[in-house]
């Protein structure tokens, strides 16, 4: 590809919304600038650390939502599933005295089983996923009440469970982790470059690789500095990042992930290519249930309790809105797991900033709704432009 073609390609991708990530970064910078201008505590180390802790649970749930959105489907039950899974963990651990790890594993298994069940119903009976998971939303909320029983609320005391959202590493450990992350990223970049060169393919220039490496290194160093000048690097953030990186790897670099994109892009073409379309669908809904459970456990750990409201309120809508705001298409076949993190950051920043400004819930809901609508419109416009230029 010549340099000219590449430049034109970049411009087109910007206009048509393929570079949604850049758009989101600009939006996020804008949001941060506005709130910092209104309240200079917004960008303080303490508040930024709080922000990251606030978005950890939603971000984890959104990872599963991204997979479902890539299929062009929707899962309305993730909020309820996250609450139910947290309740299962709490009851097993607190009331039945289960080992905390076993209780967590059981909760994750419940989430996965629910996802697989909903995925099977959806693909076997060709019922819209919207309806199956809406039924699930109601049913699992009922199950949550049932599991919690008469008390209605269970306090978590086990340090293994509460530690998930309340562990902070010392400065030294934080820097070691940062160094490992940066070195690991550099290694991955170099390895990929070498493989392409070895196969006789055009690869990114060394300068391009260096730019990417420096960017990630700078972000990591800045983030670590911020965390260290507050309570330290939070375990919750590391868990979220690990899942984002891991699930992004699965969806972008493995055959399974490729098939998820294919089913979302053209299910009939995928079927004719020999892909087991229903198997992919069931697996994806299983992933959504699993990630919902993991997010629910994280939320419970942060709240130090599970109650009848767990997984309720606006959690579901924010978990779905996040990835869409950050550029995962509602129409299927386009997106990345990073949008789970970026979307949670955007929504979390708005919510956190408005809390700092002591705005009412009324305003918060309306603003968040407006941002979501804006994001969906941008997605739809990008799609129309693609169609306009002969791309579907």
């Amino acid at each position, binding site marked *: 590809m010549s340099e000219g*073609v590449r430049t034109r390609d970049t411009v087109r991708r910007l206009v048509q919304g393929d570079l949604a990530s850049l758009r989101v970064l600009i939006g996020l910078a804008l949001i941060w600038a506005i709130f910092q201008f209104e309240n200079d505590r917004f960008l303080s180390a303490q508040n930024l650390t709080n922000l990251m802790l606030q978005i950890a649970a939603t971000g984890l749930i959104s990872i599963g939502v991204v997979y479902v959105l890539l299929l062009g489907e929707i899962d309305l039950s993730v909020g309820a599933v996250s609450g139910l899974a947290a309740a299962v963990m709490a009851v097993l651990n607190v009331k039945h005295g289960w080992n905390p790890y076993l209780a967590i594993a059981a909760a994750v298994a419940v989430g996965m089983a629910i996802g697989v069940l909903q995925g099977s119903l959806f693909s076997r009976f060709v019922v819209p996923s919207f309806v199956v998971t809406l039924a699930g939303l109601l049913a699992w909320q009922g199950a949550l009440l049932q599991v919690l029983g008469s008390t209605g609320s269970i306090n978590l005391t086990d340090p293994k469970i509460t530690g998930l959202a309340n562990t902070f590493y010392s400065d030294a450990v934080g820097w070691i982790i940062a160094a490992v992350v940066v070195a690991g990223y550099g290694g991955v970049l170099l390895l990929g470059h070498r493989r*392409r060169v070895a196969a006789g393919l055009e690869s990114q220039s060394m300068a391009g690789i260096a730019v990417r490496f420096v960017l990630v290194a700078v972000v990591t160093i800045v983030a670590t500095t911020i965390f260290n000048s507050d309570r330290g690097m939070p375990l919750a953030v590391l868990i979220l990042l690990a899942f984002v990186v891991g699930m992004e790897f699965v969806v972008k670099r*493995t*055959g399974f992930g*490729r098939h998820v994109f294919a089913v979302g*892009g*053209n299910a009939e073409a*995928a079927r*004719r290519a020999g892909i087991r379309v229903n198997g992919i669908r069931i697996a994806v809904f299983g992933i959504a249930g699993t990630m919902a459970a993991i997010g629910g456990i994280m939320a419970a750990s942060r709240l130090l309790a599970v109650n009848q409201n767990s997984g309720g309120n606006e959690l579901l809508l924010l978990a779905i809105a996040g990835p869409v705001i950050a550029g995962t298409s509602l129409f299927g076949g386009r997106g990345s797991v990073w949008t789970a993190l970026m979307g949670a950051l955007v929504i979390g920043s708005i919510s956190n900033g408005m809390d700092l400004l002591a705005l009412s819930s009324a305003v918060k809901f309306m603003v968040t709704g407006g941002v979501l609508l804006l994001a969906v419109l941008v997605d739809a416009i990008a799609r129309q432009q693609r169609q306009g230029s002969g*791309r579907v």
Partner: protein
Amino acid sequence: MSTGTPLLELEGVSKRFGPVQALDRVDFAVHAGEVVGLVGDNGAGKSTMVKTIAGIHAADEGTIRFDGQQVSISKPQDATGLGIATVYQDLALCDNLDVVANLFLGREEVSPGIGTASRQLDEARMEHQTGELLSNLAVTIPSLRSEVGTLSGGQRQQVAVARSLLGEPKVVLLDEPTAALGVAQTAQVLNLIRRLRERELGVVVISHNLVDVFEVADRIFVLRLGKAAGEFAAESTTEEHVVAAITGVGRKAEEEGK
């Protein structure tokens, strides 16, 4: 016209859908390194014939021989297993995936590893193979990493044909490969078909467009109301003869052709 054992041979193949006799004792053959144009009016049975060969419909009667051996084709996997690839009119491409991903869809190359989820796609190898295949076929595409949705109709058709070649088939069936293409794009696709012939493949091209068929086919096979209605060597016949066979006007034309 090629001689010797045909690669693919249909003998007395019939197919009935309820009261409709879609194929009526059709004999048909395609040899290696030969392009056969399959023409006929709407409802003449062209699609049914291709679908019978491709294993979408099983034939009611008749025999199918592949490489001289009698075979039974009752499902699509039977046909692909024998080495018969079909490119349907709708192409069945994923517009949101790039050229490499589409070519290898469903048969991705993976690096060794443990468990499906950790086995990484070997993108470098797939891209390398894609580049080689497309340049062998003289297919030019701006970038192997462009989304298929961004390509022109002719390029998409060529990608679909190239994909069918990855399974190393011996016979390729093309359903209306030039429909809805502009002049330049049609020329590209016809060139690609010629290169399939050079690779000693047996090629069957269904088309409504007689100009294209005459351009590329060695032999023209006419179906009319489910029956074989004429077979012409493209070099020694005229469009009028073929049209007459298609419409059934002037049965004499058919005899002349034979």
